[in-house]
């Protein structure tokens, strides 16, 4: 009989400690997340439960008028559209560039990439959004004004500022994603006579696609939640962004502009929290979409294997 098999050992104790540590850390994060969600949710629904704003109206109308308490005219539709539009434009501009840079860093020239290109892009992360806002205001806006006429303020200006801001986020994560592809795959593909470009397209991009998508989603999330910089260049007018040069307002810019001027537990304040709630719901939707894409790509992968 091998009694020793049933004895406890230091490994068991180590594992107990480890499990305790990691699960308590995870609990902290989750409790925090739930607390914030609950907080925003409870404040956000007050507009509908206390102030009796029609939920459907709130989603579909495009005016923002909280002064008239008898007949408030409140709707977040224009804000949502603007948020989506600026984010989408920013991501469309940035993603190809970020991918190119990431490929350069990982494949083309890891030496220059690692020493110059990546540090330079990551430097952008440390610049506060206020600075982006003011540079946008002093350089980009006059440029757009001279180039396209009008005031320069608007969706395009906001998108371009956002595009620069999310460039480092997407790039860094894309680099991580590409680095996650085992080197042996590349070696193998080269040994079959693939050109660099073929390796990039058929091996690297294909294998890391789900993680690249996650990188883009991170970028979307950052662009979506950015407030200060956008607020300075978008022109803050609550209306549907019909053109690229229409001054408009996003969920976050409206939130930031008005928050300090509202009184707790009034319609004006509750409505802003409702915007926060909308932001949450929209990022939830992004998240689910991303999950769906990831799951699909994974199931396809497992079939092909």
């Amino acid at each position: 009989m091998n009694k020793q098999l049933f004895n406890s050992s230091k490994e068991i104790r180590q594992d107990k400690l480890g499990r305790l540590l990691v699960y308590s850390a995870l609990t902290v994060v989750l409790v925090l997340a739930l607390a914030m969600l609950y907080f925003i949710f409870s404040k956000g629904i007050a507009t509908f439960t206390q102030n009796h704003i029609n939920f459907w109206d709130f989603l579909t109308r495009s005016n923002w008028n909280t002064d008239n308490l008898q007949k408030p005219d409140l709707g977040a539709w224009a804000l949502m559209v603007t948020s989506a539009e600026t984010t989408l434009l920013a991501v469309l501009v940035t993603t190809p560039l970020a991918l190119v840079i990431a490929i350069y860093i990982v494949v083309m020239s890891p030496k220059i990439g690692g020493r110059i290109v990546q540090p330079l892009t990551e430097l952008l992360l440390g610049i506060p959004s206020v600075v982006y806002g003011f540079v946008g205001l002093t350089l980009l806006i006059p440029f757009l004004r001279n180039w396209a006429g009008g005031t320069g303020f608007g969706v395009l200006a906001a998108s371009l500022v956002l595009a620069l801001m999310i460039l480092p986020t997407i790039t860094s994560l894309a680099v991580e994603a590409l680095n996650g592809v085992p080197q042996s795959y590349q070696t193998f593909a080269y040994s079959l006579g693939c050109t660099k470009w073929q390796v990039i397209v058929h091996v690297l991009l294909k294998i890391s696609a789900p993680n690249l998508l996650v990188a883009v989603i991170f970028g979307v999330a950052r662009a979506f939640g950015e407030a200060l910089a956008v607020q300075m260049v978008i022109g803050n007018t609550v209306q549907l962004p019909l053109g690229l040069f229409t001054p408009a307002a996003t969920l976050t810019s409206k939130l930031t502009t008005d928050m300090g001027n509202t009184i707790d537990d009034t319609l004006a304040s509750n409505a802003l929290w409702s915007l926060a709630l909308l932001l949450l719901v929209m990022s939830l939707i992004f998240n689910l979409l991303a999950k769906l894409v990831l799951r699909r790509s994974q199931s396809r992968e497992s079939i092909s294997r």
Partner: protein
Amino acid sequence: MDTYLNLPEEKDSDIVAKDVNIYYGKQQAIANCNANFPRHQITALIGPSGSGKSTFLHSINRMNDGIARVEGELVYQGQNLLDPKVNVYNLRHQIGMLFQKPMPFAKSIYENLALPLREAGNHNQADIAKRIDRVLKMVDLQHEIGKDLNKSALHYQVGSNSGFV
């Protein structure tokens, strides 16, 4: 499909599998496996790719806890290994396992060899160095990597992996 690997008598065997069934979720990987693995012998499991050889081996070492569901009994020196009360670490100290694909740790070669010893409770630096030296001599890699012991083990992955994993 039932699998019978009846080689010697059970009393001469160190490991005996009795009606082992292994499932990944709903998918069954091993069906009713009965096998005796005789003492002081090398037994080879042969089969086509995907037939469950690794799955079976993994369960002897309890490496697929939480990944696969293993039913039946795997008796090792009179004890059922699949008993949840078994301390898997003590088990793994007694039954070793080599993987198909070598997976050195991202440390120096020396550290790769020293870490398991240290983790097993040997903290005598001199003794560890002696043991490593002996092992390298045993596999005749002393001259090839003896001077590179402080280099990353990962660089030796392709050429001479079978040597020291």
